[in-house]
């Protein structure tokens, strides 16, 4: 059963050996050239499965991968039960929101410490689990890098996602994410990344800084 048409994959609900699973199928996109399309789908499928596994090793909750079919660009993975932060965040009390954002920051730090860049950090890609942890999904744009620039872009993306989709609470949420990040990496390392975030913003189109 198709439950979501994403930008690069269709998400189906299914069963696999008696388990409820998600089938993430990267479909052909008619808008792009066949050469580009085939290479992207195949690469991202294999890569996503690998990085989800690495992130789990880093201590970040991620779905369990059951099967990868590179030629069909399909991954079968655990169906994660819980609510997306996108819908959850606006309903929470300030205190609960802060706590949750702190967890998000810690998850990002755990990935970065293992040189994993998520590449698409939005509140739609985070699910609150029953045990109170935050599960990260959709590693389709993830990659390995130990560069400050890439870590900065990662944090810049979540900041912008907050500013656009959760503009009422964006500032406090991002402050708390930074707090969570610092708590694992230490102040010195974190500040370097935060400095990069500012730099990326200034580099963007038309930033007015007085």
């Amino acid at each position: 059963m198709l439950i979501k048409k994403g930008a690069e994959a269709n998400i189906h609900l299914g069963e696999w050996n008696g388990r409820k699973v998600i089938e993430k199928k990267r479909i052909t996109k008619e808008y792009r050239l066949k050469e580009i399309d085939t290479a992207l789908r195949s690469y991202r499928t294999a890569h996503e499965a690998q990085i989800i596994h690495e992130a789990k090793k880093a201590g970040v909750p991620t779905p369990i991968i059951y099967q990868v079919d590179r030629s069909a660009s399909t991954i079968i993975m655990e169906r994660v039960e819980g609510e997306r932060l996108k819908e959850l965040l606006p309903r929470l009390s300030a205190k609960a929101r802060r706590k949750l954002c702190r967890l998000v920051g810690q998850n990002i730090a755990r990935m970065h410490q293992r040189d994993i860049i998520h590449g698409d950090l939005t509140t739609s890609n985070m699910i609150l689990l029953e045990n109170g942890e935050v599960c990260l999904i959709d590693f389709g744009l993830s990659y390995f890098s130990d560069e400050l620039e890439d870590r900065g872009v990662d944090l810049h993306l979540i900041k912008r996602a907050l500013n656009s989709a959760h503009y009422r609470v964006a500032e406090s949420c991002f402050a708390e994410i930074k707090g969570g990040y610092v708590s694992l990496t230490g102040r010195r390392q974190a500040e370097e990344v935060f400095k990069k975030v500012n730099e990326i913003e200034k580099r963007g189109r038309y930033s007015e800084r007085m």
Partner: protein
Amino acid sequence: MIVLAKLVLCLGIESTAHTFGVSIASDEGRILEDAKEVYKPAPGAGIHPRDAAQHHCAAAPDLVAKVFEKAKIRPRQIDAVAFSMGPGLGPALRVGATIARALAVYLKKPLVGVNHAIGHIEIASLTTGARDPLVVLVSGGHSALAAFAQNRWRIFGETEDITVGNLFDMFAREIGYASPGGQIVEQLARKGRRYVELPYTVKGNDVAYSGLLTAAVRKVKEGERVEDVCFSLQEVAFAMLTEATERCLALIEKPELLLTGGVAANVKLQTMMRLIAQEHDATFKVVDRKFSADCGAQIAWTGILAYKSGGTVKVEESVVRPRWRLDNVFIPWREG
């Protein structure tokens, strides 16, 4: 004439970059007249801000007079004078601002400072009837994805370095053509047959084009056919943008997708964007070709909207803002 007297009329002056544009719009949503003169740098060169400003200075007097004449409007009949206050090239912006201030003072009419990017969005909304779209603004100055919420356009994705318009301009320059390069690349791309592999960089809803530019220029220097590189460059640049747009559309689920800005005239990009709009049950809309490139009409019409909701600026405070972001503009005239 009695009917006309009831209308609110706004003169709009555009001068952010290449184009000096003058237009008159009415509050019933009609563009009475729209005229422009476009500065052309030498082949292989980019815009020189001072030369652009001089071009605008020389073009302005006749163009303003011509627009009043053709619209059959006497200068005193207008209700407000709007100008592009930013973002753009300082020297070019100051020409438009100076003329607008002078006219406003002389005619004793209020002055309205318009954000050029908002102008692209509003003229597209006017001509397509879009109400609550995800906007794809693609031009020399912008590559941004925006949607409206609570008095502001919120940016959901944008370029992290150069714009798609820049990309084509700079590439065209490197291979010896004059800016703007979008049309040249589009024409050459039609004769391209073979895909030359180029780097593809999407970061969430963002894109980055500088690596693509460097690689494309290198491919030409290595002896690849220019037509093939143009074809591949266009395919990759637009596929990146379309993927970012689709990701954004899947995220915020808007009922309309609105393509605007100079690059919106590109037929290939329109085809790609139309496909993803259909995929996500959104209505695809694209700005009228007459108003896709920079024009006075986008300023005149946005000037009407701002003027009618009290958005005027005092002459002494009407300093141009070369780096004015579109998400910094407070917008009282839209709901959402």
